[in-house]
């Protein structure tokens, strides 16, 4: 390859990939607002409070930031807002072991900040952060098991099937079964798998009607 050819490869190749990147950027910007709740004046005011106190200097939001303190994008789903408001205004008064200093955040600023964090918790982040798989499976760490999940465990379904990386690999993975099958199919299949999948090796689920109902509802949440 001549030097000129190498130079042209660099220049025009870079422009080519940048053009693709620009086209994707255009498409993405058109979709972002649909993937997040509406931004009210209070949410915007809260974002400004976020910047004023340089929260990103310690925390992360959507996983980006300083890794020194907890991730905050979904914090309002985890902790009650009344607690968070008091904590923001005077962290050590609420939790003497807290590392966060008192910045002088006012009650009004705390409300706005929480409105902003409430907004961030509802953004569609492609499933991030994932639910901790070991805690979800065991029903610990603040993750309560639903009735359907308990039945799934007591029947030993995970011996063959996998959900979110936990379970056996002999039967189909059920992580997204709710988006593949409807209620009638699932319920009928539990009662007689062979009727729905010819030659199925799965045994009929011998359980009361109410349990099968609960199990089906659980399957439908797996999307």
């Amino acid at each position: 390859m001549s030097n000129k050819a190498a130079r042209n490869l660099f220049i025009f190749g870079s422009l080519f990939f940048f053009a693709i990147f620009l086209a994707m950027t255009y498409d993405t910007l058109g979709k972002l607002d649909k993937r997040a709740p509406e931004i009210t004046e209070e949410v915007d005011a809260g974002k400004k409070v976020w910047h004023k106190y340089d929260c990103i200097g310690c925390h992360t939001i959507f996983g980006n930031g300083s890794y020194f303190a907890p991730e905050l994008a979904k914090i309002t789903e985890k902790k009650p807002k009344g607690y968070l408001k008091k904590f923001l205004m005077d962290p050590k008064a609420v939790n003497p072991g807290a590392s966060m200093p008192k910045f002088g955040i006012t009650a009004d600023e705390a409300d706005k900040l929480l409105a902003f964090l409430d907004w961030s918790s509802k953004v569609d982040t492609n499933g991030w952060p994932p639910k901790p798989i070991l805690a979800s499976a065991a029903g610990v760490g603040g993750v309560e098991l639903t009735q359907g999940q308990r039945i799934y465990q007591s029947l030993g379904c995970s011996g063959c099937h996998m959900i979110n990386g936990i379970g056996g690999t002999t039967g189909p993975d059920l992580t997204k079964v709710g988006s593949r099958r409807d209620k009638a199919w699932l319920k009928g299949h539990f009662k007689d798998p062979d009727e729905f999948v010819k030659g199925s090796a799965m045994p009929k689920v011998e359980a009361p009607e109410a349990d099968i109902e609960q199990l089906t509802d659980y399957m439908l949440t797996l999307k």
Partner: protein
Amino acid sequence: MTIKHESQKIAEYFYTFAVVLFLVQVLVGVIAAAQFIWPGFFVLNFNIIRSLHINALVVWLLVGFMGATYYVVPEESETDLWGLPLAKLQFWATVGTIAAVVLGYIWMGFNPQANSPVMGINPLNEGREYIEAPRWADILIVISVLTFLFINFMTMMKTKKWTGIQGVLLGGLTFLALMYLPGLFYTKSMVKDQFWWWWVVHLWVEGAWEIIAGALLAFMLMKVVGARREVVEKWMYIEVGFVMFTGILGTGHHYYWIGTPGYWLWVGGIFSSLEPLPLLFMVWDAFRTTRGARNVTNKAGLFYSVAHAIFNFVGAGLWGVIHTLPQVNKWTHGTQITTAHGHLAFYGAYVLLVLSMIYITLPALRGVKEFNTSRAYRSFWWMTISMVFIVLTITGAGMVQTYMERLMGLDYVTVKATYNLWFWILRVIFGVGFFYGVLIFVVDFFKLGREPMAAVNAVPEEA
């Protein structure tokens, strides 16, 4: 060996400022590391210390690039710099701006309310990682960079010797200046905020800066081992070309989880997995070019530039690719794994790059052919071994965090304060080791070529 053009001496101004900021960066870095153990360790809180740590890093590397460019362009254009007084003004204006920004951060540390918006603008700190500098400073920085680009462009226009090295160098610097612009406006949506923010951060370090690195590496290989220009420049084009082909769409690995559409998982995963390849190519190129080299006068310069190529690949390439696939990144995103990658990547790709440019050009600036290299090697090993262990401790902390917090569901604070404690302690120890290495380097920077060489010169003659 001396410089060919008197105006190249301006490079030393920039190098000196870069070296001072490097020392500050590492000093506050050690304080930040200690705050992981005792959050109240210092009068300033962690957020201020970390802003200083990462801003000093970005600025000293940029200032180092500027110094290197002011050295390279007159040499490549075979003429004196256009507008030397303007270059000096640009230097002092930059120093003044940076000093004001630093004072602003410290003031905010003592009085957070001082950052209350004035006409809708935060006067001291924008509250956005890496680009914390307030808007007024942003504008001054843009003016400084444009002045710098203009001076170099006018210098090239004097003789119109369009060498590949200065073309790519100026191209990379122009791209760098352009990519600062997406960080200069406010967006109401945090998703859009982060979307544009990654244009600045990613397209700098995995785009524009790697182009600059490719051009400077080519220049260094030519200077130190006397490699042929045609060959060096051809490989440079291919390397920086592939950096761009993989790096631009590789931005997608930052668009997995911030509220952006799912197709970025595919685009980011595929292109960023390819990103280490051009860096590996640079390592191969550095070895191929230097293998047969005889009569190398500046062995320390050669050593640093080859080390830069290797650690660019290990830090930016390998430590990046381990967590770049969405299936992995889903669990590791936002953990200490990222910190580990950040440290080794910046050290290998850019710290060693600026240090090698200093070791290759400073002897000429000081008018000496040879210099006592013992401090250069000692500081290299202190810094490199310490950094490797810093990175290993943070990687360990990140693995524990990923497992215990992300997979098991333990609380963030529990994992950080209890299970990762020993990693933080070890990191401070290696941080002090790194700081010692930097001290040796700083002493070397100020003494290089200014002390008698008799003892060193005598050895080969007697042998």
